[in-house]
């Protein structure tokens, strides 16, 4: 067992330092790159926090949809293949819901401020 602080705590501390102490004192292209760097650290924090839960739920949905077991990448490969061949389509019960949920879970990590994502989050409960 590894010691604490855990990775998300360490990354957040570094991101906060860059954001609060370094960003105000640099300018130009390096300021832009620093913003990208802080965004990358924030993304990693979100992934470490959310990935295990969303991956497990995605695998369970895929296993149901495809009637097979496998790793997440194998299941996704099988789904891609069936959609490409036209064996599954938007008429297939559960497919649209699965693709939406999986995509929403990706955006929650990648770009939670993306306008399309904010709009779709607001639809919850429809």
């Amino acid at each position, binding site marked *: 067992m590894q010691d604490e602080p855990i990775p998300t705590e360490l990354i957040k501390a570094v991101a906060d330092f860059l954001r609060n102490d370094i960003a105000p004192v640099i300018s130009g292209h390096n300021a832009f790159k620093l913003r990208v760097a802080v965004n*990358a650290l924030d993304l990693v924090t979100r992934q470490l926090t959310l990935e295990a839960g969303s991956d497990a739920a995605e695998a369970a949905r895929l296993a149901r949809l495809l009637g097979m077991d496998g790793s997440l990448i194998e299941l*996704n490969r099988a*789904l891609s293949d069936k959609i490409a061949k036209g064996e599954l*389509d938007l008429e297939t019960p559960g497919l649209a819901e699965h693709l939406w949920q999986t995509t929403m879970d990706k955006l929650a990590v990648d*770009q939670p401020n993306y*306008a*399309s994502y904010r709009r*779709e989050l607001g639809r919850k409960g429809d």
Partner: protein
Amino acid sequence: MIEAELSRCVAAWCSGATGVTGAAKLSGGASQETWTFDIVHPGANIGAILRRSPSGYGAAPSRAAGLDAEATLMQLAHDAGLPSPKVLHVLRPEDALGTGFIMQRFEGETIARKILRDEQFAKARPKLARQLGGVLAGIHGLPASKLPKLRQVTATSEITDLEGEYRGFGRPRPVFDLALRWLRDHDPGPSREQTLVHGDFRHGNLIIGPDGVRAVLDWELAHTGDPMEDLGWICVNSWRFGEIDKPVGGFGSREELFAGYEAAGRRVDPDRARFWEVMGTLRWGVMCCGMMQRFRSGPDHSMERAMIGRRSSETEIDLLRLLAPRGN
């Protein structure tokens, strides 16, 4: 230093020029560079841009039209009265600057967030979509007989191309498969009319001033094909920068874009434009995945490129909003 070569070069064709000053590289990939500089002239200095492939680089990537074609197209557009820089000089071997051309520099803004939010563009924004419709009609009306040799693109060839690129990445993305399937099922066939297509008509390649559009840049992806491709591409959600209810670049409506296009004497096919919007959304998604590949395989191991790789999911949600919309 590049100023020495540029000074020798401009002296040969710009009468009265005594040299150049302020040369600075604006962008540079592995095979193409863009430089800004001023031609020193007793009348008034002339703002100029150099686009070149430095000597020693091989053929451009297969999708690129090539710098000679870019210069020809830019000059054609300029001569037709479209907002396009004048080409001042096409590089010759004796210029020792590689291959490429020098063009007039326009002042203005290309950064989307500024164009969409800054007060100085407040008057330009409401008229941009209509104006750009007119500009596209002008581009699509350029005489076929004067065009340089360009790639020919059809909906079918583009789908095949995108699919090949996506499969080449070796990582499944079911939403991309859904989009490819939709595109194959809705392929409208070859366009009745084949015209010049700019190929990358969007924020970043348009110089905007407080008065509206000033210049169309970057003909690198120009080809011939379905003119509706350009109308679909500028509506792709990725170029709305958060203003998702204004499909044209985050500043205007499809109706305004189409009205400007038709006022210039050309017909819009809204279904085809929509088809190309789906294609364009997938194309940007595949390009984001390509950035990730380039990051991983080394030619550009930058943090920015890595992070663009994580933007492909944005195109997945936009594809779902187009193909499997939920509720109202």
